[in-house]
């Protein structure tokens, strides 16, 4: 299938990656090559084949609903670029 620059901008937006005029042509070419390659899958008729998401999927792995220790707050914040009052400090999202 044809990969347009418009599609590349759209996918980059979904992935929160910056895309600009200087890079979009190359990205379209890269993506086009990779999709051209994986299009080989379309040769197979899989209508009656169920999908596999995990090789040995275990369903409903539960534990007892009991209190237990969690990561201390200072550990959780230890790698944060900015924290304030025991919370992550982030750019303003609401005016």
């Amino acid at each position, binding site marked *: 299938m044809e990969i347009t620059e418009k599609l590349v901008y759209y996918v980059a937006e979904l992935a929160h990656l910056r895309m600009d005029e200087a890079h979009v042509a190359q990205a379209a070419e890269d993506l086009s090559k990779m999709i051209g390659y994986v299009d080989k899958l379309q040769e197979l008729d899989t209508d009656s084949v169920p999908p596999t998401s995990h*090789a040995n999927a275990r369903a409903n792995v539960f534990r007892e609903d009991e209190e237990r220790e969690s990561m201390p707050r200072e550990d959780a914040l230890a790698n944060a670029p900015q924290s304030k009052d025991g919370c992550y400090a982030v*750019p303003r999202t609401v005016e």
Partner: protein
Amino acid sequence: MELFDLTALELGERIRAREIGVEEATRACLSRIEAQEGTLHAFITVTAEAALRRAREVQRGIDDGTYTHPLAGVPMAIKDLISTRGVETTCASRMLKGYVPTYDATVVRKLDAIGAVCLGKTNMDEFAMGSSTESSAFGVTRNPWDASRVPGGSSGGSAAAVAAREVFYALGSDTGGSIRQPASFCGVTGVKPTYGAVSRYGLIAYASSLDQIGPIAIDARDAAAVTRLLAGIDPLDATSVDAPPPAMPEGDDLSGLRVGVPRECFADGLNGEVRARVLAVGDALQALGATLVPVELPMLPYAIPAYYVLACAEASSNLSRYDGLRYGFHPEGIEDLHEYYLTARSEGFGAEVKRRILLGAFALSSGYYDAYYDKAQRVRTLIARDFARCFEQADVLLTPAAPTTAYPLGAHADDPISMYLGDIYTVSINLAGLPGMSLPCGFDGDGLPVGAQLIGPAFGESRLFAAAHAYQTHTDFHRRRPPEAGAAKGAKANGEL
């Protein structure tokens, strides 16, 4: 026998017999690291001081009977995507430079509990996305057998460190071949355990339905000992499975073992010298009592396309957590949240990682999901069925680990897909969730190691170890090691004892 001619278990035995001190072994490894790292760059972080402190602590524990495990006191290394409390864990990415985990991966806790001595964190392809360790943000690792060549990847640092005997074993991770292919390129023994055999808790995720942690070791017995240590169900990983640990291999009698040889794995695209060496493994196994059985894997040509769709889709989802706000790379002085995300992710990730995130986001996007992601999941089912049929006729399968030996640095720089094709024999094992193992089986005309792959049914690791150990009892390829790096190329072919 010189210290560095020992395997990890042999060293462990001498340590427990008080013939070699833990600190002595640790210092010897640190000296080799110091001497070779200028050329090899197998490590991102060497924790020399902590390792020496740990060595003294473990020696006391051995002396007072706290540590009795066969690998107690043996120096080892950990791939830099496995979380180590208090030790920087980068994933070879600018995105995680400076990130210091506040908890240990389950496998690290297990290593600590038996008195392992970790010397540092090994280099890799960024976020484990690559087959050559060239996409590391911190520089390439070189192959100890020929410094102009790649060590393979993504666990290239772990494989190079073991091949160069900077450590006696190392942990790697394998999503599509990232333990087995570098083990093959570096002439060491690597194991990708069955999906669910080893806890992934604390393993920084690439593609969660495919990732497994496993050992890179000197021989099959070392690999078995490490796998036994790592394996087991973990309440912190809901995909881990309660299965008995694999057995330590003993003896060389392979009577009754049916070795399947998939026709498709010896067809076009396979280097002739690799083909000859791997087929010779089949002959050697037969001489030990095994029977060779022709089998078929007709879905093989679809494995790499299915893998890249699924692995990239999972990666695009897993790597969405890197927002620059809680840990890792963060831009300065940006007030707008969206702009902050874009800058953190665009400057933090390298080119190959972004390429795969874009493909994955595409495959999962509305309008393309059915044609790509869902389609690849259905093909995954067909690939698993191929293996199920093979294991009706055979107990293990024999294939090459990779179609070539180690290639020169930069060989695939302009064409990522040509590098992906090198994963042809390994990716389908991850898709089917099976155990796979790469073992050294000779050298090509340039003195570069060749690796054979053994594949087992789910939780059939014991069979792989038994076959590999029997083979290694009668060959010495796994005992060969390259001259100390900087120096010249390695041994020539003809390694049977």
